[in-house]
């Protein structure tokens, strides 16, 4: 029983963090936000050069073969720096789905190595999301037709774009027609693939939300320490302290929930989906609170476009209902917790009932 990360995992996380600190600085975020495409090919290729597109791809396909637990750390960094890219969709959710395709699918291995080297951007059209993130800029779209999974080239779909409050989210309504040629899985297999994709997509959002919460807390702490009113830093006022202490507490108790969910997912535990929903709710709560207290501590400055906080708040608000809104995840929780004979209470936190 060891509920901690290895030094290697933490070191890799730190390395990625240092990389993003320089590559995804707020000024650069701003320019991508205000660009037409909302995407930076340069950024994407630098991410690929760092091997970040290859994290989930199996090693024999040229990837690093990392699991969900690694992504619980990685997605926090993506959130902390609010990178204006859907990296996790391609490199985590899509890579996981493609890797799980039956080997008969001819293109599978090609897609995997293209993902690994960063040649393709893959958009995932899971039914839980009414719109598809990056539908317009994707090279390949994984789309649902009932239980079926279809892999559709960009050229074969029409995309109507919808603007999100988070300008680094580029959403689109996709119209397309399923064909035998595009179908890569169906029936039981298709259901299973979509179920895994849902849990991975949800976990990716949870991790990013937690990273966003940590960043907004850091921004608020920095501001409160330097901004003076009534002759002293506002951070010395108890009301400000207590706002930020509450955010810190929410973060402290969301982190391990995220990690537990990632482990459950990586090990295919029966209760994994419930853990994932719990993580989404806990991390999004932390992010929501961090945004609220973050803007309050920033005062009027926090209400402006010029101050970085706004980009992190909007991302937190936008992600809150993506990959299943609160109602969706609360129902998954309720079903499990209120079920007859549910294994609740002391001793069931790690013991998985068969």
């Amino acid at each position, binding site marked *: 029983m060891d509920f901690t990360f290895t030094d290697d995992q933490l070191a890799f996380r730190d390395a990625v963090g240092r990389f993003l600190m320089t590559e995804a600085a707020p000024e650069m975020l701003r320019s991508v936000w205000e660009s037409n495409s909302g995407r930076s090919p340069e950024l994407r290729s630098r991410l690929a050069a760092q091997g970040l597109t290859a994290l989930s791809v199996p090693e024999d396909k040229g990837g690093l073969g990392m699991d969900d637990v690694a992504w619980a750390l990685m997605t926090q960094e993506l959130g902390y720096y609010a990178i204006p890219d859907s990296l996790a969709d391609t490199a985590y959710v899509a890579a996981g789905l493609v890797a799980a395709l039956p080997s008969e699918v001819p293109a599978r291995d090609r897609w995997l190595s293209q993902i690994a080297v960063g040649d393709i951007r893959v958009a995932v059209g899971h039914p839980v999301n009414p719109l598809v993130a990056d539908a317009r800029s994707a090279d390949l779209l994984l789309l649902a037709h009932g239980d079926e999974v279809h892999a559709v080239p960009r050229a074969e779909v029409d995309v109507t774009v919808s603007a999100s409050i988070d300008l680094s989210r580029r959403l689109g309504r996709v119209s397309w027609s399923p064909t035998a040629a595009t179908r890569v899985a169906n029936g039981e297999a298709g259901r299973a693939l979509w179920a895994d994709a849902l849990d991975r997509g949800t976990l990716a959002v949870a991790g990013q939300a937690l990273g966003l919460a940590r960043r907004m807390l850091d921004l608020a702490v920095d501001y409160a320490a330097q901004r*003076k009113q009534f002759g002293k830093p*506002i951070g010395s006022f108890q009301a400000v302290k207590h706002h930020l202490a509450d955010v810190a507490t929410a973060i402290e108790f969301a982190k391990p929930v995220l990690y537990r969910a990632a482990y459950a997912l990586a090990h295919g535990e029966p209760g994994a989906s419930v853990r994932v929903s719990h993580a989404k709710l806990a991390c999004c709560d932390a992010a929501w609170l961090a945004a609220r207290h973050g803007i309050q501590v920033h*005062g009027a400055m926090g*209400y*402006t476009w010029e101050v970085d906080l706004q980009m992190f708040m909007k991302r937190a608000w936008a992600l809150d*209902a993506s990959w299943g809104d609160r*109602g969706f995840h609360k129902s998954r929780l309720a079903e499990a917790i209120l079920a007859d004979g549910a294994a609740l209470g002391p001793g069931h936190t790690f013991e998985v009932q068969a």
Partner: protein
Amino acid sequence: MDLAYTPKQRAFRAEVRAWLANNLPREPFASCDTREGFEQHRDWERRLFDARLSMVMWPEALGGRGCDLIEWLIFEEEYYGAGAPMRVNQNGQLLLGPTLMEFGTEAQRNRFLPRMAASEDMWAQGWSEPNAGSDMAAITSKAILSQDGSHYVLNGQKTWSTRAIFADWLFGLFRSDPASSRHHGLSYLLVPLDAPGVTIRPIQALNGKPAFAEIFLDDVKVPVDNRIGDEGEGWHVAMATAGFERGLLLRSPARYQYTARRLVELYKANRATADRDPSLRDAVLSAWTHTEAYALAAYHTVGRLAKGARIGAEASTNKIFWSELDLRMHETAMRILGPRAELMTDAPHAADADAAGWLDGFLFAQAGSIYAGTNEIQRNIIAERMLGLPK
């Protein structure tokens, strides 16, 4: 206690309702934080004025119709209940207006108020400075009286001035006694924004629109006639206004009751999905109970004012109550809308009427606990002035 409206009050309600039914714009205006929207709203204000409905509480001579506070509440109920446009000149009309009535000379009242009622002059407020936000007494912008005593020379910087890039006039506090500090030595001045030496730099709000501006004052000449109240008495004069602002005038209950009604409709239209999160139904009921409580408190206060009471620190409870209520209602709407909540309302997909306005309102609600004195400051005021706790 008699909670029946008088025939006169009912007739007034009917008149306002009828006028709005005939005159409401068919198409929603653009945001008043844009030039286009600003002008649309300004034209609308002129039409209200022509019907003598822009400032119903003001004396007829100044363009109003001498309504009492009850009639004013009735007007607000009809106005916001009809979903009428926001009042683009309200900072001037509701912050400066009452101050002019109370502290202005007759000449000043006649010069400024009718044009303000007609929105011929658009007003922006000049309280905050880069280092004087919550701590308003830290104002450093100077207004030095000329040798001949004919005018002040203004130097300094104001900020968070709402829609100032579109406005004609600025009202605010300036330090007229350079040797003074804190609440002393401040004077309340009215500054034409086209005066030489005035530079206005827009500030983009959360929604990316120039909702505020910074105003730089570089040897700006302002005639002494533009001072309200005595020199050095600005703080006292302004606090009366601030009291009004925190209090009822700027935030009558009707707009929140209208939001609550829309929220109930939103919930009913999306009940199947909304009820998957049991907290939402409760939040929707609270929207009604809390907006209703706010309306009842308003009528109670108005009744006490009519009997000669004054609004004191309890005005601060209003500020806390409406700002946190407004935020909760919009958060609840976002939760009900789920994945549709993040979509800009001009986005095609969001064209489903349900979502319209909620995201904009949610963003604006973020500021409610910050402007007009942060809620932290308001809670201090309640504790110290209403409950008498030590500073």
